[in-house]
């Protein structure tokens, strides 16, 4: 998560690069098709890690419910080999990072713990 964040902030800080990459990124997201089955990007993050599991536990009830709903709906699409009707696709502006703030928080806690565990008092 931290690495992704680093790259994206590097790009955003440089307007020329940002303007060049942005259309490519948007096209990539569109082509990858997850929005057409009603998913948000952060529904696709690998969740089989301690960090993400804890982050999922910390989600407010409303967000957790919506996430479960989206995943079930996408699964149904997958089983029936269909896409959602076009008006139910996730719009680019709806595709927001809802989980990564929690993941970053946990990563920060863990790095803090590591720092304290390995520090020596001078």
């Amino acid at each position, binding site marked *: 998560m931290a690495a992704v964040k680093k790259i994206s902030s590097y790009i955003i800080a440089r307007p020329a690069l940002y303007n060049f990459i942005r259309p490519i990124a948007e096209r990539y997201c569109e082509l990858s098709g997850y929005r057409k089955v009603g998913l948000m990007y952060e529904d696709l993050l690998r969740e089989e890690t301690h960090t993400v599991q804890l982050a999922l*536990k*910390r989600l*407010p009830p409303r967000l957790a419910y919506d996430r479960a709903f989206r995943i079930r709906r996408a699964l149904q699409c997958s089983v029936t080999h269909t896409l959602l009707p076009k008006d139910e696709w996730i719009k680019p502006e709806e595709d927001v990072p809802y989980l990564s703030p929690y993941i970053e928080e946990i990563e*920060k*806690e863990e790095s*803090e*713990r590591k720092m*304290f565990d390995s520090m020596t*008092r001078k």
Partner: protein
Amino acid sequence: MFPVRNAVARGVSRQWLRPSSLSLQHSRAFASPASAPFTYEVSEAAGTKVVSKDTGSPTASLAVVIKAGSRYQPLPGLSHALEHFAFKSTLKRSALFITREVELMGGVLETSLSRENIVYKARFLRGDLPYFTELLGDVVTRTKLVPYEYTERVIPTMENEVALAYSDPSFVALEAAHASAYHHGLGLDKLSVVRKNFGVEEIGEFAAAAFNQSNLAVVGSGVPHAELSKYTTEFFADVPAGETLKAHAPTYYGGESRAWSKSGNAVVIAFPGSAGGPAFKAELNILSYVLGGQSTIKWSPGNSLLGKVTEKFPGVSAVSKNITYSDTGLFYISVDGPAPTLVKALPEVVNAIKSVANITAEDLKRAIQNAKFDFYTAAEENALSMESIGQSIVATGKVPQVQESIKALESVTLDSVKKAASTILAGKAAVGTVGDLHILPYATDIGLNV
């Protein structure tokens, strides 16, 4: 820079007992130990009340006493939850950071909850005062109240504490006595037994209403007053001015409540007691020492009235105390032991209160000496009695100096104690009975009015 800490580092060797090893400003306290061993200095630091005493000891304590105990909570359990949010993540540092950093400095962090106050307390080496003032200011003004800390850390510890407290029949009986004595406000449960629908928003609202200049006081012990007020001005600057919290007026009702318990048997017999602060009635305090119960000598039941009673009933213990609140107080005797023995002991306990009418001048003298000893101990220990001092400051803006309180204790007469005992017996008692209700008697059976 910190001569006291250097003295400790050289291997204590009682260096710090000698005034010469301390910086000059503290030596004043040692010059005339007989007349005024500790003087509380009171001031306001940018609107926040600060009170402290400096004994020149190598360790110091700092407490923030907030008038936000259970009698002021708008929802049951809110104060308890707020107390448990102490030293959790703030805008400046995480909970882990606080814990580890304080460990590195050799500090101790504590919190306590009473019906009147929430107390955040830190004990530390004298030189670390700036750090701990900053930490407490941070905790009071900038705790984040994160939802997941509430579910992951606060609720489990709260439930643990409730389970532990409620496995002690004496505690449950005291809660029951409070309920019969006051019904509302002070009568409600101190801990979060019933946690009605509230989350961090409600806790935050309560904290916002409670954490203001008219509700809290910074109490220091073993710290120079000038330094403490300087740092308080700096680090408590964000505490807003505000209104004091209102509680239900403490009307004393009296009565009886009984609860079944498998974990033991206890009976608390309570009467209207003395309020704390300037309104303190010393004769009730002395009365609790006349009745006594808790022996000060090992392997001896003691010579107090309750000590003589419990001597006859193995397994039974009886203690009398006076809890002071800001505007009222509860004088109580807590008796516990096996149910069949308790049945026989309880009438004798009530007789002991009646027999206060026959005490001698020596009994009174002994009680006064015991009371003085305990009072001085509490005053000279850095960490003790901070809550009562803070409570007095928040409620009245004044704190009784130790010498005044000792004088009040010494001037209690035989007649005033006898009168206090007969007055409380003539009035209604508030009784909490917990345990085997099939055996345990009702209040009227043991000769009390309820």
